[in-house]
């Protein structure tokens, strides 16, 4: 706690956001817990990758963006979608595969999209979203706007070719993109030190002429602070930044993977749970007199209600019409040829 107490003083600038961030993080936590339950009883199918434990990464970084900036992620993206302001209803309905889902029930857990909020998906091929994220930054540069692109991927994705090709191009062209390694220590069952020749991934930024920072991902203020500077650089035309944000996933890789046992011990998981991102922020707010048990209870109730509403909405929503099988493959004929 000591560490975070010290941080609290220097991050006073973010205090006005704390209440909002606490709610967002709590919402993600409860949403994911509920999604996990729905999956266990078969209401959600396919692969489902939960974000529990990593909440501060999405909330802290995305809060640094403007509405017209771009966000893209991998398949573990429920938290980022919520942090970007997509409704619990549209996301839960998508997990249920319903017509009211953000992707019309065609995408599923791994493919959440929201064009209006510039939430560019939800991608299932490891590393596939990295060049796409740089592409949004290229487009901003092309159009002469000062939009930036926030591109999330896991630490295991830092060993795949698209990471190298994209970071080199982004560094060469000074594209306004922020590459966020969500470093939860594992790629499925493989610990970072069994997958990467060097475990301090921020140092890889040196190969691409961009700054690389290691960030405490369980401290939302630290995440926001690092992202603010990266966004400033990007908007100012100073180029991309690589953020290696250290976090931890409490749950299994996906719903079909046990939280512990094969590749990590229960003790390891418990130890990380002791520095929970939600509790770190809550403690900081209590110290600042911004939070007490009553307020926390209200918040829990409020969030519980939103999640319950989302579930009810998802359950009551219709399945996509069978004709939907054939739509969205190509542009409607009217759309073609301009």
């Amino acid at each position, binding site marked *: 706690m000591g560490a975070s107490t010290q941080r609290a003083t220097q991050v006073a600038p973010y205090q006005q956001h704390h209440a909002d961030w606490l709610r967002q993080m709590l919402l993600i936590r409860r949403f994911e817990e509920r999604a996990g339950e729905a999956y266990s009883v078969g209401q959600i199918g396919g692969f489902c990758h939960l974000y529990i434990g990593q909440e501060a990464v999405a909330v802290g970084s995305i809060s640094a963006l403007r509405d017209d900036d771009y966000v893209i992620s991998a398949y573990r993206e429920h938290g980022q979608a919520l942090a970007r302001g997509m409704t619990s209803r549209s996301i839960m309905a998508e997990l249920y595969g319903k017509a009211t889902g953000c992707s019309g029930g*065609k995408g*599923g857990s791994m493919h959440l999209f929201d064009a209006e909020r510039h939430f560019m998906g939800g991608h*299932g091929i490891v590393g596939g979203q990295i060049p796409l994220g740089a592409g949004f930054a290229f487009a901003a540069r092309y159009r002469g706007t000062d939009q930036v692109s926030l591109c999330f991927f896991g630490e*295991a*994705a830092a060993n795949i*070719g698209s990471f190298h090709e994209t970071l080199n191009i982004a560094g060469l062209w000074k594209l306004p993109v922020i590459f966020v390694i969500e470093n939860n220590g594992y790629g499925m*069952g493989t610990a970072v030190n069994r997958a990467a020749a060097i475990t301090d991934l921020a140092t890889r930024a040196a190969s691409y002429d961009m700054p690389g920072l290691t960030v405490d991902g369980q401290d939302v203020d630290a995440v926001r602070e690092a992202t603010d500077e990266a966004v400033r650089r990007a908007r100012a035309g100073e180029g991309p930044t690589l953020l290696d944000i250290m976090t931890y996933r409490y749950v299994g890789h996906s719903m079909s993977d046990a939280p512990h046992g094969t*590749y990590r011990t229960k003790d390891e998981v418990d130890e990380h749970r002791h520095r929970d991102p939600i509790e770190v922020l809550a403690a900081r707010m209590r110290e600042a007199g911004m939070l007490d048990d009553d307020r926390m209870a209200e918040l829990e109730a409020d969030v519980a209600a939103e999640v319950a509403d989302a579930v009810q909405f998802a359950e009551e929503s219709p399945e996509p019409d069978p004709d939907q*099988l054939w739509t969205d493959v190509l542009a409607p004929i009217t759309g073609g040829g301009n």
Partner: protein
Amino acid sequence: MATLTYRDALNEALREEMTRDGDVFLMGEEVAEYNGAYKVSRGLLETFGPMRVVDTPIAELGFTGIGVGASMTGLRPIIEMMTWNFALLAIDQIVNAAAKMRYMSGGQFSCPIVFRGPGGAALQLGAQHSQAFESWYAHIPGLKVVMPATPADAKGLLKSAIRDDDPVVFIEGEMLYNLKGEVPEGEHLTPIGVADIKRQGSDATIVCHSKTVAPALKAAKALEEEGIDCEVIDLRTIRPLDSATILASVAKTNRLVIAEEGWGFAGVGAEVADVVQREAFDSLDAPIRRVHQADVPMPYNKYLERLAKTDTTKIAAAVRAVCYRDQD
């Protein structure tokens, strides 16, 4: 004969071949400490150790190329693709390196390597995780493409693939791993390039492979009650294609339906249809019909996904059509 799952049959093949030949090793993501994403390699690390059962970073292009290189020196790598969807990132090494090495080098180098893992769709995995690419690999000279449908063939074909001196694309199925069946113990080798007549019949031939074999047999059973006697041929190997077995059957039934899991355009069924119309033109009493995935990316929603997939009903309907029974 023991009753094993398709998964355990593959595991037995790996175990037997790695025991028989010290040059055989397994490499891929999560194959060792995690026992395989789908547990096909369960226990192999324990038995053979980390030099022969090798966990890799997520770097399909890199570890596939390392496998191809190792095979050029005479080792016999088995490269596991966690799923064949991800192999698109490694396809340059499979097509531009492994498939061409023998030819480019004037016969000096061969690549005795197996690329294996689950292909096609499982349940609700969405557009990027549900693709069947067998027709792509079968398009490429220098490769062999093998797709077992039963536990016995899973074992027998994997053992043959490992002993083969050419690169073999070995496509399994997540939906097949739990399938149970009788599997001969020990030295059981299923020849590559030989189809299997799963059911004898005289009225119509159904050519299928991998996941479409079960629905084809179900359809055949249902059609029996309608008085249509189907012959069901499991290709087992896509390339080289066992045209002789297909043609002999069509010569007998004069009617053909081809069922596959993947998309239709230039799919495996298109090749089979072309071979049959050319070689058995006069014995065909009806146009050849095909059943394949709806020509769309795979949707997540479970009902839409069912509509998209090849199934018993669609196969049966196609057989009725080639028998001109769809009116009654």
